[in-house]
């Protein structure tokens, strides 16, 4: 049995967001939405986190940062792109310095739409990510000794 869906810790990275989505992500932690009901913690450290929440589009400056944070997370892990910019580049897509959505750099598992994404939508996205997390755990268990999972 996997306990991953019962205790999803997330690390939140603001790529180049206008702060709209970030405020909504943080709103999820407030008493009104209280995602800790589901065991969700905003842990702030990729090495502890299971879910990588990215807001904003990717540009040359933060490309390596997204890559690094993703690499430093322990398996199994999922990526949630929150908001239009993180999903596709949004209205900044055609900007000279913007490279598009987060999936240009790392594999994204769940896309949350909206500009800015609403807290309900974000919570929904995270809960969907839990399913992916469970699935990834089962897969890694099947692979067994081949993986680096101990």
């Amino acid at each position, binding site marked *: 049995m996997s*306990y991953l869906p019962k*205790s999803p810790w997330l690390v939140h990275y603001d790529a180049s967001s206008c702060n709209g989505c970030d405020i909504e992500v943080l709103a999820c932690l407030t*008493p009104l939405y209280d995602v800790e*009901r589901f065991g969700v913690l905003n842990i*702030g450290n990729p090495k*502890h986190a299971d879910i990588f929440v990215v807001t904003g589009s990717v540009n040359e400056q933060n490309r390596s940062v997204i890559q690094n944070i993703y690499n430093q997370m322990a*398996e*199994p892990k999922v990526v949630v792109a929150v908001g239009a910019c993180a999903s596709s580049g949004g209205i900044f897509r055609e900007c000279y310095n913007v490279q598009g959505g987060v999936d240009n750099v790392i594999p994204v598992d769940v896309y949350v739409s909206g500009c800015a994404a609403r807290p309900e939508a974000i919570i929904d996205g995270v809960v969907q990510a839990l399913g992916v997390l469970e699935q990834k755990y089962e897969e890694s268990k099947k692979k067994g000794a081949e993986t680096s999972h*101990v």
Partner: protein
Amino acid sequence: MSDYLWILFVVLYIVLAPFIGGMIAGIDRKITARMQGRYGPPLLQPFYDVLKLMQKENIVVNKHQKLYVLCSLIFIIVAGAIFFAGGDLLLSIFALALASIFLVIAAYSTYSPYAYLGAERELIQIMAYEPMVILTIVGMYIATGSFSVTDIGAYEGLLVLKLPAMFVGFVYILTIKIRKSPFDISMSHHAHQEIVRGLTTEFSGKELAYIEISHWYENVMLLGLVYLFFASNPILAVLVLVATYFLEILIDNVNSRLKWQSVLFSTWLVAFVLGIANIAVLGFLKYFL
């Protein structure tokens, strides 16, 4: 009473302490949430967290750090076992200090700036609480004539009546030991803008689970120490334990983190004033009564 009863206590401690510690942490999170007007996580959330960590990939910066965390866990269990076996209180506290140092060493070994900062702050915390812990035990010896937990526990009359200042001082530093605001400067859950996760930044998966479990073991042992102040009246003692822990949660929720300077100065001041005052009064009583 059999001579081998202590073995039972040790086994009970080793088996039950993680459950009790985890439950306390669960209740703590629930109460904290309610104080903040939230619904809060399930009661068993701490167990879910630890079990999840066990299922995660094991990633490290270097192999050494695993060893030190393991040492830390084992020596905390040793410290608690000595305590609940009714052994020497000083020895138990020394073992606990050894365990704390191992945790610090584990963080140092990673050569990570955030873990390093956390380790230094943790050392300051250790330096801050250590005198009060030693003085509390000294006070217990003066009052009961023994360092053995069995003898202190068997003391007739409420120990707290002889050691009121020590008790206050001990509860004061207990805030550091159970990692509560305003003294949680080394690995706070809430300080990630400042020190990421401080001491535990470079630990994940199993090691992080070990750190959490050792924290539960430690909390149970510390509550055992608080119990000793009221050992002659178990019902009162349990009530005081509950009240003390509730007080700690309240303090946690109404305070923000302090600077390390304030942590060090305030705890040393408390230890110095309350420690000396209590020893003086005890000496006075011994001399004239």
